């Protein structure tokens, strides 16, 4: 092997670690070059969305299920943290963990019956869950503040160090996002992850290989709900205000669109999808009014031409081309 080949092989072998390191460095340095609070506010929102999308992609892209209701868990996390810290005066960090645990329990109780369903039926059931949670947030005025929202949520802090401006939040939010990214990458590259891919490929074949399909689906559902809940808590502490409008079924569908556009079954695609869909409305004022139309249109186009998602679809078509070329070379 020449030194160049060795170098390329080293990069190939450590591609995941190197990409994570590169991304971390870029994010570490970003506030030095870009300190416009508006821009950082946007990237922070990408980080929050990315946490939800990572979990949702495990559920949709890896385990092959569908959820049109993850904004429910996102909302439960946000309102949970709000109520715990303001009404019950629990310190924010323990509150976040407590709320995540409660959401996990909710997801488990909901997941056991509804994950017996699949396809359209599962989509409808999760959609229903979202409606129920949204209605509770909207109608239970005494606890949630009703349609006018819940304000006065404290910032997160370590001692006297408060996460109260965009730069500080940048490090906090992206720290959590990178950690989630790393955990998800580890998961999908393990035996458990392969079991999930098998599940998405064919349920009967997966079971025949020893994958406990029912349990695996429920576990991933709970995991994705916990990630959504954590993202919700961060959302609440970041803006110190939450309202039911942030947790409607349109939020849920936006999240599904992020998964689909980024790429089903691609952890990196989740980041890309979250970034693209979060930024799109900012690039064109037009998008504000016709947002749902445009998101819908993009979704239809991606599903028609690259059903695996934008990133996964492109990467896979390149991979297949390379493999086919190798096959051709091998045969001649």
């Amino acid at each position, binding site marked *: 092997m020449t030194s160049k080949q060795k170098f390329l092989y080293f990069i190939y072998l450590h591609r995941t670690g190197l990409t994570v390191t590169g991304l971390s460095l870029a994010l570490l340095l970003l506030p030095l070059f870009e300190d416009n609070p508006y821009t950082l506010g946007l990237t922070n929102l990408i980080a929050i969305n990315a946490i939800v999308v990572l979990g949702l992609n495990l559920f949709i892209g890896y385990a092959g299920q569908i959820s049109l209701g993850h904004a429910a868990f996102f909302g439960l996390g946000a309102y949970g943290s709000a109520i715990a810290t303001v009404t019950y005066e629990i310190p924010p960090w323990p509150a976040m963990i407590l709320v995540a645990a409660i959401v996990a329990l909710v997801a488990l109780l909901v997941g056991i019956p509804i994950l017996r369903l699949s396809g359209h039926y599962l989509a409808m059931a999760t959609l229903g869950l979202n409606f129920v949670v949204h209605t509770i947030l909207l109608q239970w005025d005494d606890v949630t503040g009703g349609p006018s929202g819940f304000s006065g949520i404290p910032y997160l802090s370590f001692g006297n160090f408060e996460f109260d401006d965009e730069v500080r939040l940048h490090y906090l939010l992206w720290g959590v996002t990178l950690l989630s990214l790393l955990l998800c990458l580890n998961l999908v590259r393990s035996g458990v992850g392969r079991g999930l891919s098998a599940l998405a490929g064919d349920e009967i074949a997966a079971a025949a*290989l020893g994958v406990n399909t029912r349990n695996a689906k429920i576990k991933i559902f709970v995991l994705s709900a916990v990630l959504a809940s954590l993202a919700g808590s961060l959302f609440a502490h970041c803006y110190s205000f939450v309202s039911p409008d942030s947790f409607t079924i349109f939020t849920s569908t936006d999240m599904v669109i992020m998964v689909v556009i980024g790429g089903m079954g691609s952890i990196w695609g989740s980041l890309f999808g979250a970034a693209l869909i979060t930024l799109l409305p900012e690039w064109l004022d037009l998008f504000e009014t016709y947002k749902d139309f445009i998101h819908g249109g993009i979704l239809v186009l991606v599903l028609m031409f690259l059903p695996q998602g934008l990133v996964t679809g492109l990467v896979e078509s390149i991979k297949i081309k390379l493999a086919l070329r190798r096959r051709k070379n091998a045969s001649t």
Partner: protein
Amino acid sequence: MLQLKHVSKNFGGLPALSEVTFGVPKGQLTALIGPNGAGKSTLINCITGVLQPSSGNIRFQEREIAALPAHQISRQGISRTFQNLKVFSRLTVLENILTGLTCEGGDSMIMAMLRLPHLRHRERQLKLRAMEALDRFGLTDKANWPAGILAYGDKKRVELARATVSRPQLILLDEPVAGLNAEETATVGEQLRLLRSSGHTMLLVEHDMALVMDIADQVVVLDSGKCIATGTPGEVRQNPLVLEAYLGRMDATA
């Protein structure tokens, strides 16, 4: 090793299997044959837990497995291949084989997310075993190909490699040579013989009579959901019931 007693399966009121009784002895290759619609696939599905038999007992190594869910049956050491291929086309060939070792993972989701050192070590070992299996089936140079682009024959070999990589106690093969040409059939036959000589127990569902008569130690004949004959290939070939139900027709058309 595997013992079926009076296994019946009804779909609605329609009996697909009635009172099927036979055994699969350890270390041997048992072939299950019968005309289309005889209930062979239903039987395989009952053994592997995809379907639950309506009545009867299925014992595997002295343990009743008829009521167990599919993944637990798999973890007892029964693996299978599928008649209509179920290769995971989005995974690479190597990853496909690795899914065959899922049942040995047994690790929790949280451990996997933390990627502790001992997991990394085991992951390397699993990969080595998977590579060995690829080598056995002549797929080494395609290890990193997406399985979806493989030719049909190669996909069949991936299934076979996946089903055998965990060294299961019993392998159920649902028509492993259907759709293969004579040369490929001979290769698969050779591989099955190798598996048997290395001590694997197999139950083979197959329509290719030449292959069955060539490699089976014992043949079980199913017709309209009933077990009509059991014996060595020689005995079964001469059984008038079998001739009438199946082989006679095969000979006439062949």
